[in-house]
């Protein structure tokens, strides 16, 4: 038995592995050279049990709060913010947008209703109830009142999940605002900027690409610069604003613009301080009325905490976590974006943790309890989404409030510490869909952290996802991110690596169905389903037109190179249009929706005197994703093998077969779906190289395109859940999809109704997927793995799983997420949702309550290849 093992109070599960990993382990900066969390590092919570456990936390308070926590995304719509914003806009009609925005945010922070909920130790809310949703009229207001009027917001057959409740009073108050926002929203301005040539292939047209994510809501997808926030406090940040203001010249025109920005920043920064003081007063007031002396004392501590952090830099773990929570919540109040992420929690909180442990100011247990309360506060946040968006983004809430753990520090050393373990335990103790957790792994990750991560994943709630420093950091460097910033990356939202607090990255702003691009490439720019049924028929097909670029027909090609060339040119054509659309939306944000409060929390804005929407952040990116890599890759492989190598069918026949949705071509349909055809995901270079071509071509035409903020575009290679929506927009395809089936998800292989195209198991998948160039997808990649619980059971299941991930890391895969659930469990949950309310699953990018998902998405998850180790 090794020395460290002997010193521990709990049994080690595998001495030989400890010994084997000694060298890397010594590099870990762990207190007492071993993780001292509340739970042992190898604590197991069961395999595949997901959230189905009453009272999961060791803390009574947390269980009491959880008992009153809604396990759905549904809450009440709150009209207050919309009224206050409208009022502010009416009072300041002629001022620059950033000033108007500052007045609006100030009004909500000063006058929005605030509450402190039973048992909680950390305060903050979106000026409404838990899971309530404020209304942000600036992006589009009419849909809110229209949906209420038309019965599309509350529960109905048309909206069976992610619905919202509202009172008659709320509806009446919002109806009174109708009309004011006409012609003033981001949606209105975007529509004015794009013509039919740009819009024809978009969500508003034939759905080759989507660019609508930020028309109806803010961009979000970033983290605050928590390091600086915690170092300076709100008062210190205000000092930086004042400094910027005092350094301006009176007469330079650009300085007049900056003055407007700094003044707006001062307005919201002061309002933020007052907002926190309101909580101090509320807590004091509640303490005075509280019969329970212990609770009254807690409330007074909460009041003191708020009073101090309203200005001062935090001095303790409690003050720091309260400031992180409130600052982020206030940014949510300002900005309608989702996936605001919490940065490298274990890194920026560690100095406070360590100080409190060393001085004895707090115990590990008390800090563990605060982290768990903090997680519940994150889950309580919610955003209103329309009935169209929720179809593909089920159980969305505020999107992906990701919290990043582990990984390399700015100085290149491993950063694993006690908080890494505590933050992971906290998820097992609350088992809520938020925050999403990302564990950064690399060649030097301590073995103990891999065990902790594996045990959490095996539980089956879908958390955490794992990211690979060894590919992500070089990928960021290739985008011009400075080395220290690249090492300090966080994961935002579902998938995207991001320099914490330094980038306005417009992550996940749109996506391109590259499988649809292949359709247009080999069919001379026309849709397979071209005909009078199409709404564009009269102005397009009927008059000899076509949707895309005329790149020739597979019926006429006499070499496979012509196919590749057609795909390349077709891709460029669509990327031109997607970039145009996204830049238009971006310009509308700049014009209408500056974010002065967020700007005070981002690196670069106070230095440059520019709002974050106007390119004030240190880095500015725009990140759309390529969707359907497997489908496009298998499509190319099918064409190459069947038409050009085997000459089994002619190009004409293959086109006829898909146009007929395979009706009458059953043997061919079976054949293209069989293992006789080269398919991506089987460690088969023939197919894998074509999937790589499909992805590289997408990257080539998107990467480095200039965006509207002085930065550039970054390609992503994932779908999250939009592979379902893109499939619903697409006719059959040559690799064996029938019309409207989902296209392949993220970096995964093709699954059609006829069967999965990957048949050789996880090592083959790992090798196929890592033949793609993950580092080139600077906006992120994702591979979804699905395991049956039996596959991961026991010590061998755990260690083989870790070895599989180690090899994925070694082979430069960027990012993995995991579903651990029985097919039978998922099917049973579809049949009896009420019995499975707590069944958390990994969707793709995020975890969600399975029964809260759209049926098509549920089916897609059930259809993913289940990797059994048996």
């Amino acid at each position, binding site marked *: 038995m090794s020395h460290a093992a002997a010193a521990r109070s709990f049994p080690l599960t595998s001495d030989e592995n400890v010994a084997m990993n000694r060298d890397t382990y010594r590099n870990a900066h762990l207190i007492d050279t071993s993780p001292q969390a509340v739970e042992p590092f190898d604590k197991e919570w069961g395999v595949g049990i997901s959230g189905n456990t009453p009272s999961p936390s060791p803390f009574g308070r947390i269980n009491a709060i959880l008992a009153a926590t809604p396990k759905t995304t549904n809450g009440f719509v709150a009209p207050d913010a919309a009224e206050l914003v409208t009022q502010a806009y009416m009072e300041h009609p002629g001022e620059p947008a950033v000033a108007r925005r500052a007045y609006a945010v100030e009004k909500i922070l000063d006058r929005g209703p605030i509450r402190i909920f039973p048992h909680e130790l950390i305060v903050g809310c979106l000026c409404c109830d838990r899971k309530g949703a404020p209304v942000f009229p600036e992006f589009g207001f009419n849909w809110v009142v229209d949906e209420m009027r038309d019965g599309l917001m509350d529960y109905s057959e048309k909206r069976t999940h992610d619905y919202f409740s509202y009172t008659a009073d709320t509806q009446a108050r919002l109806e009174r605002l109708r009309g004011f926002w006409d012609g003033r929203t981001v949606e209105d301005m975007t529509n004015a900027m794009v013509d039919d040539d740009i819009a024809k292939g978009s969500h508003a047209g034939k759905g080759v690409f989507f660019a609508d994510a930020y028309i109806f809501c803010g961009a979000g997808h970033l983290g605050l610069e928590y390091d600086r926030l915690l170092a300076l406090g709100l008062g210190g940040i205000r000092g930086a604003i004042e400094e910027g203001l005092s350094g301006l010249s009176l007469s330079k025109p650009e300085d007049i613009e900056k003055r407007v920005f700094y003044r707006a920043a001062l307005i919201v920064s002061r309002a933020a301080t007052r907002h926190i003081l309101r909580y101090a007063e509320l807590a004091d007031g509640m303490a005075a009325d509280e019969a329970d002396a212990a609770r009254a004392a807690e409330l007074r501590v909460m009041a003191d905490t708020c009073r101090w952090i309203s200005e001062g830099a935090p001095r303790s773990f409690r003050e720091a976590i309260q400031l992180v929570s409130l600052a982020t919540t206030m940014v949510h109040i300002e900005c309608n974006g989702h996936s605001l992420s919490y940065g490298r929690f274990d890194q920026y909180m560690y100095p406070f943790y360590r100080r409190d442990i060393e001085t004895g100011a707090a115990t590990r247990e008390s800090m563990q309890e605060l982290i768990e309360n903090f997680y519940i506060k994150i889950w309580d946040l919610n955003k209103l989404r329309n009935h169209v968006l929720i179809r593909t983004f089920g159980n969305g809430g505020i999107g992906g409030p990701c919290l990043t753990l582990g990984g390399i520090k700015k100085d290149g050393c491993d950063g694993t510490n006690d908080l890494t373990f505590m933050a992971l335990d906290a998820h097992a103790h609350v088992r809520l869909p938020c925050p999403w957790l990302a564990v950064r792994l690399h060649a030097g990750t301590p073995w103990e952290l891999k065990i902790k991560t594996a045990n959490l994943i095996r539980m089956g709630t879908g958390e955490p996802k794992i990211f690979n420093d060894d590919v992500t950091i070089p990928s960021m460097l290739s985008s011009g991110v400075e080395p220290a910033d690249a090492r300090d990356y966080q994961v935002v939202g579902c998938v995207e690596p991001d320099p914490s607090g330094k980038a306005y990255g417009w992550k996940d702003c749109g996506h391109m169905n590259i499988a649809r691009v292949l359709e247009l490439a080999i069919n001379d720019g026309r849709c397979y389903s071209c005909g009078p049924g199409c709404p564009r028929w009269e102005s397009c097909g009927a008059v000899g037109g076509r949707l895309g670029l005329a790149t020739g027909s597979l019926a006429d090609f006499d070499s496979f190179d012509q196919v590749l060339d057609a795909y390349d040119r077709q891709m460029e054509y669509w990327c031109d249009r997607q970039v145009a659309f996204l830049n238009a939306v971006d310009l509308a944000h700049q014009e209408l929706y500056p974010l002065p409060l967020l700007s005070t929390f981002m690196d670069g804005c106070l230095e440059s005197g520019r709002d974050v929407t106007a390119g004030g952040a240190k880095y500015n990116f725009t990140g759309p994703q390529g969707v359907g890599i497997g489908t496009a890759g298998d499509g190319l492989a099918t064409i190459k093998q069947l038409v050009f190598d085997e000459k089994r069918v002619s190009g004409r026949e293959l086109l006829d077969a898909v146009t007929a949705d395979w009706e009458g071509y059953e043997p061919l*349909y079976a054949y293209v779906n069989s293992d006789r055809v080269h398919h991506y995901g089987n460690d088969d270079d023939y197919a894998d190289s074509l999937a790589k071509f499909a992805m590289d071509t997408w990257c080539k035409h998107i990467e480095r395109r200039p965006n509207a903020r002085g930065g550039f575009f970054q390609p992503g290679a994932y779908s999250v859940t939009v592979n379902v929506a893109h499939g619903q927009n697409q006719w059959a395809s040559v690799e064996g999809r029938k019309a409207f089936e989902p296209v392949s998800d993220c970096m995964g292989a093709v699954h059609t109704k006829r069967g999965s195209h990957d048949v050789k198991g996880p090592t083959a998948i790992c*090798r196929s997927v890592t033949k793609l160039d993950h580092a080139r997808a600077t906006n992120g990649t994702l591979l979804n793995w699905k395991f049956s619980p039996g596959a991961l059971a026991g*010590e061998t299941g755990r260690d083989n799983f870790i070895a599989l991930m180690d090899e994925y890391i070694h082979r430069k895969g960027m990012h993995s997420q995991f579903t651990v659930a029985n097919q039978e469990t998922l099917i049973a949950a579809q049949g009896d949702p009420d019995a499975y309310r707590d069944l958390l699953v990994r969707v793709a990018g995020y975890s969600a309550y399975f029964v809260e998902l759209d049926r098509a998405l549920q089916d897609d998850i059930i259809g993913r290849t289940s*990797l059994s180790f048996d």
Partner: protein
Amino acid sequence: MAGIIVNIQRFSVHDGPGIRTEIFFKGCPLRCIWCDNPESIDPRPQLGVYPARCVGRDRCGICERACPLDECPLDYAGGRVSGARRGLCEPGCLACAEACPASALTRWGRDMRVDELLEAVLPDRGFYMKSGGGVTLSGGEVMLQWEFAAELLAACKDSRIHTCVESALCCGWEAARSVFAHADMVISDIKHMDSGRHREITGAGNEPILENLIRTVEAGKPLVLRIPVVAGYNNSEENIRATGAFVRDRLRNSILQLQLLPYRRLGVEKYESLGQAYPMEGFKAPERAAWEEDLLRLAGVLREYGVPAVAGSNVKIRR
């Protein structure tokens, strides 16, 4: 040199330590009634028929056209292929399986050379190294093709790959010795201690098996033993105690682990595809809770004898 191989399974994690590639040999001298790999018993290539995958005789009919005989021995029901009168086929033909576009007709068994198998094994070397895994030869019975197995294992060892052989050891010692020369680990099983009963459920007595186990241990080969525990067949405490006594007295407990594995109703679809009846058709397997308890109890009994017994195959093998 070529052997007949029925399947290559990557990411096999229950037959030997770590992540492994498992190569299933075709042909077996035993006829265990619970066998879940019936396609590996006959040493010749065989036709598998999967009616559910058939796209229809009228729409397709490629199988009939591929048949070299005047009267195709395939049977059809409801417009789909449903079976085959295999006795009428030309030996080793399988032209229909080669032609079928829908995998409704499949070929079980293919001659493969050592270099072809090595090519299938090498890509996962990174996984073997990360997990302490390697290659496992299984079957069927590896020892029926012992010369080929020895050559294949030697090639794996040349590539620094950990090797494991899973065998019933119902074979001559010469075959076992030749194969073991290149094997880092041996997995075998004791199905019953009573030779008569052993013959009833496997078709052969257990004397050569027990003798080979003793020799394996004497040769110093790391050995993992298994008992496939089947209620009513071999799960009596008497039989388990006899096994424990044998492992203690004759094998001196010099084994790495003894795994008690549950019976599972697997392979039924494969029997159907071969046109064979499932031998345990009437058998009613106990509920999971009952067999889990049974395995844990019997492992306890074996540990009384000092046998390193565990329930299931999820407990790490300490080397």
